[in-house]
């Protein structure tokens, strides 16, 4: 029974991660945040071999992410959507099966729209970033909810960058 519960929990974790990717791909930010606890903490990090330091490129809690996503339509931005290809590599449940840590490898492509010269490059796909999602989740009933996410980037040449969560 324990093993079956664990398999179900692991599948629930994977389902939440993959569902979050689809919601972010579709820029449904408030729906993405509904998969996250109120205490959710999000950060984008990278190691710089130039300055030989771990860096934080962005961090925010649930409330800050929510207000940022609400405000971003007031900003000028590159509207070329980011699309994620993700594979959940590992899911480790705690002993009680109530929380989990997951490692997901991702590639993010940018589907060009208006970032440079739309007549020429709209419709092209550019590799935007690679890295891993390092997630902590907790089980609530039969579902998994995000407690925290670290977006660990390998890409450090981010060119124009982006306003949006990765």
């Amino acid at each position, binding site marked *: 029974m324990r093993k079956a519960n664990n398999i179900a929990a692991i599948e629930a974790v994977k389902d939440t991660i993959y569902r979050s990717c689809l919601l972010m791909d579709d820029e449904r930010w408030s729906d993405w945040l509904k998969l996250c606890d109120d205490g959710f903490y999000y950060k*984008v990090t*990278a190691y*710089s*071999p*130039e*300055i*030989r*330091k771990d*860096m*934080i*490129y*962005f*961090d925010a809690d649930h*409330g*800050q992410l929510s*207000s*940022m996503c*609400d*405000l971003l339509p*007031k*900003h*000028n*931005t*590159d509207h070329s959507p980011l699309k994620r290809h993700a594979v959940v590599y590992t899911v480790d449940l705690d002993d009680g099966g109530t929380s989990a840590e997951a490692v997901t490898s991702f590639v993010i492509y940018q589907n060009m729209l208006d*970032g*440079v*010269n739309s007549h020429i490059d709209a419709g092209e796909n550019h590799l935007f970033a690679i890295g891993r999602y390092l997630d902590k989740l907790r089980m609530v009933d039969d579902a998994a909810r995000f407690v925290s996410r670290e977006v660990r980037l390998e890409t*450090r*040449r*981010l*060119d*124009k*960058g*982006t*306003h*949006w*969560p*990765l």
Partner: protein
Amino acid sequence: MARNAKQWNTHPDQNKIEWADSRIYSDEEIFEEELEKIWKKVWIPVCHESELPEPYDFRTMTIAREPVIVCRDADNQIRAFLNVCPHRANLIERRPSGSFAEGTPSGNPKNMTCMFHAWQFDMKGRCVHISRSEEGYQDRLSTKDVGLRRLRCEVAFGGFVWVTLDDHIPHTVQEWVGSALDCILEPIDTEPLEVFHYHKAIIPSNYKLWHDTNSEFYHDFVHYHNRVTGFNDAYFARKNMTFDNGHVVVGSFEVQYDQYEGFESREALSFPTLPPNNWYMVDIFPGINYNLRGSALRVDLMTPISANEVMIEFRGLGLKQDTEEERLTRIRHHNTIWGPMGRNLHEDLLSITGQGVTMSPGTEPRHILHGRHENDTIHDEVGMRHYYDEWSRWMGRPLHNPTNRPTTRGSVAAAE
């Protein structure tokens, strides 16, 4: 009313409004000349001293296509050299940073080693080993003949490592910058600083367009954040001040960070002696920018790659003495505006990307207006005019006909 070709191409009256021919941004010949006449002749802050904190640490970079290495000797002296082996011109060090304290597959500890043929150099640039020297060179060549090409190097202005390719540059760094950085000298030189952020962008645009963006604030209309946290009487009273050698300072005012939802005052972590939430921008000719917003310093360094391509390195700095908590707060303040996911940086880079489209090599010459006059205040384009006066002096090219070639389409249109 929209204009026909003749009207579009007719030069504005220079006596009424200043303008530049866009070929200063798009002409390949001008670009190559800029590397020779400007970029190889000025001081460049290639990195920060905190990026090579220990003896035998090094950083590598490029100035005007020339590979450069900066290293710290056992006596803590920082020196710079061309990162080029005097034997067969291989790159000596390929990594962006590291330490020579340990040996490498081809060389000994505490030396720079060219892996190709294992020639070795000490931190003073002296050649200390030529592999099988006597067998191959007999007495025709020895280590004393093949030292590295040393470069002039000074540490100044917040701990930045300034390097020049010009042995005969007539200024020290202090003389070159002059008093342009006086407005933030105490904040950046009272306590040692430390780099906490590095990222880079390669943008399909001319390097001067990035410098223009940093030196004119009329473009604050692109920034929702700046409009809601500024755009008051104090903002519009900010002065643009010009300094010798083409440098420009955009004066300060108190930013109302709390007017942007989710943002907070920077007062608690102000740089030493900086009034709360003040913001200074200093543009150093030809492509360096110091940007101090209350609790975080950003320094941009441009590396021009081609007429229509520039690499911009973005560094964020705090105080070396920061506690972990202070540093995290500084990083957050920095990132929310200036990080690769920050509110403003993305908007600025989008803007010059668009300019890069319309002014790429081969596009027709355009009139770039530099003609706003508002008593040298924030939306006055005096900063750009000052920069281009200096640029014209270095280049010996007039802004209105920089190629000494006719503006082809304009001439055709004018003859209609």
